């Protein structure tokens, strides 16, 4: 990616537009700003941004709906700006294809870090292509052979553990909601039984994390879901 990444900022608060715009531009991104959902969708098709920063409280269309429509036509990462207390909206947005979220009032560094990670994932996936192998720190995950190595030592995983790990790793640096994970690993009937997930995550952390008490790969997003961090 030689060209600077193009970011579409969608928020109806002028104050946020006026402060976030300069923040992102100063980091070298090209920024388009929109105050309504309709305008945002039009801009998205016109400018094909690399990433969308989306506030969920929009005056015309629901932010979650914007999420769904963007995801239907593009794989561009979506980072949701959400209000504390609007957990349901946040989770819905993630289920509908958003990649990550920050809660207002967020720190600028936090948002910038999320944007960097999301853009890097995008470029990495483009470079790597369908190699069937993911390297993250000391971990190597070989999807085809269903093997996991840490510093060239194989870690033995049960089939369920591998399913969970590969799901998170394939969507690395994205937040997957509990619901999404449960549905993918255990099937649609298990979505109301998060205890499966807690148990399995604990087992998996014991096997792959250098320090299971302070996870480095399998990060928990409290009350929302989990994310696999590559770096």
């Amino acid at each position, binding site marked *: 990616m030689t060209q600077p990444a193009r970011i579409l900022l969608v928020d109806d*608060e002028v*104050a946020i537009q006026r402060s*976030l715009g300069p*923040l992102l531009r100063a980091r070298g991104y090209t920024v388009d700003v929109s105050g309504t959902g309709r305008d945002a969708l039009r801009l998205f098709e016109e400018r094909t941004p690399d990433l969308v920063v989306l506030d969920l409280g929009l005056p015309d269309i629901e932010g979650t709906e914007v999420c769904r429509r963007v995801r239907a036509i593009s794989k561009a990462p979506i980072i949701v700006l959400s209000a*504390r207390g609007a957990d349901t909206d946040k989770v819905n947005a993630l289920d509908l294809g958003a990649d990550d979220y920050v809660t*207002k009032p*967020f720190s*600028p560094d936090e948002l910038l870090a999320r944007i960097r990670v999301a853009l890097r994932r995008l470029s990495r996936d483009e470079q790597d292509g369908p190699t069937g192998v993911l390297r993250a720190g000391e971990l190597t995950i070989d999807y085809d052979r269903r093997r996991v190595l840490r510093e060239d030592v194989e870690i033995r995983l049960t089939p369920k553990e591998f399913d969970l790990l590969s799901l998170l790793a394939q969507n690395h640096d994205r937040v997957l909601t509990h619901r999404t994970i449960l549905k993918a690993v255990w099937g649609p009937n298990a979505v109301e039984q998060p205890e499966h997930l807690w148990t399995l995550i604990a087992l998996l952390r014991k096997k792959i994390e250098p320090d299971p008490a302070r996870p480095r790969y399998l990060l928990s997003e409290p009350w929302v879901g989990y994310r696999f961090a590559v770096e």
Partner: protein
Amino acid sequence: MLDTRRSRPSRRISMRDIFRFRPADFWWLAAGIGAIALTTLVYSTWLPVANPATVSTTFLMLVLVVAASASLGAAVVVSLVSVLCFNYFFLPPVGTFTIADPQNWVAFVAFLTVSLVASNLSARVRSREREALSRRDELARLFDLSRDVLMVTDSSEAISLMARSIARRFDLAFVAIALPHATDWDVFAGGTQKIELDQHQLWSTFAAAQASLEFDASSRTYSGHRTVPSDGQEVTLVPLRSATRPIGVLAAAGRTIEPGTLDALAGIGAIAVERAQFLDERKAAELTRQSEQLKAALLASLGHDLRTPLTAIRIAATNVRDTAMSDEERMDQTSLILAEVERLTRLFQNILEMARLDAGAVAAEARWSHPSEIIEAAESQVEEALKHHRLNVRIEADMPIELDPRLAAAAIAHVLENAAQYAPDGSNIDLTAFVGSDGLVFQIQDYGPGIAPNDLPHVFERFYRGDAAQSRTSGTGMGLWIARGLLAVQSGRIWVENTADAGARFTVVIPVSTKGTVTVAGSSGTQTT
């Protein structure tokens, strides 16, 4: 059943009432005896009659007349007098109380019997009538009392009021409604007398009522009535029952009331107590609900209105610190920070004002001022918010007025701010001040979209924001509520209407004292010194 109920009290009452002489009875007695004397005189001197039957019929007629009008006692006395006269003057041997002919004995006894029975019957009919009258009277009183119950409101004052109504409607010197309250009694008394009730007696009456619920057919009451001496008075205690459960005790003294009526009275009292308690509970529940709602609304509003400025300030400050930017950009970020701080300040002030209004801590301090002074103060408070609108001020009231100018200005500032929020940038806002018949009037007319008809009744409710406003950027739903609260402190009013060709028009009316002239010292704003 109906018959026994009717006859019982009449028997009880007759023995007491029949031999009681009222003044009228003495007149009837005298008239009866006089008439007998006259008849005796007429028959024995001017109109001698041979047949005693004629005499006895005449006497009987007189006895019946007395019996029909006076008490039984008078009738009996008249009967006896007539019997003696009959015997002495007309039954042979005349001039003695002896009777020779056995036939005349029969006539004498028959006469005595008929006159006594007739007197008794007639007296009984009249006592029945009197009883019916008093019953009708008590029914009317109960009826009035039941209407009083409907006026019971939701306070303990209401129960006192009820006790007073019972005392008044039933001419009782003392009435008290006593309600058990953990370990002692709440006594709500009415009537002209004051009697200290013995708590032990209240408890024992209450306990007895809890223990049994028997209907006493002979006295037509439910069990539990007692008459006890209290403070040197005979006080009747009647359990108040709601359904079958006793909820208190009714105490009455000063006049004898029929137990059945007293029972009905206690029933109505119980209904009143229950109603007052029910209304109390409903009010408390309503208050709790409102306060819960308020808390939720406040939290939601705060959450939304704090989050955005805080985020913007944080990011803009980071931009100024970290980023190399032109002076112009730096200015822009700095002014953004200041504007957002201003917004937070305004929010903070609103919350503070709201809390002060809630706590009743806002008081009007009336002083002399001038309409232009108030408008200038209001304008300066919302300068920032009105930056994008044109405010046209027309003051048609050029005289000193007495009111609290600070509160008035603050209220108008809130209305102006509201207008600026909803009318599009660049539009006009007209502010007119004039003195109307009810006081000083301010009209704030905007040229925005107006207010949706279904929002109109609610715009002054706290945290209410119209559907269209929900998604708008600014606005907390506090401003108009505060404006109304500030105005209410000085008996002012505010209302809103949509004008046909423009947006919304808010009208503020504040009752004021005016002065025809501007010569009074101390009136600020108009005097040039």
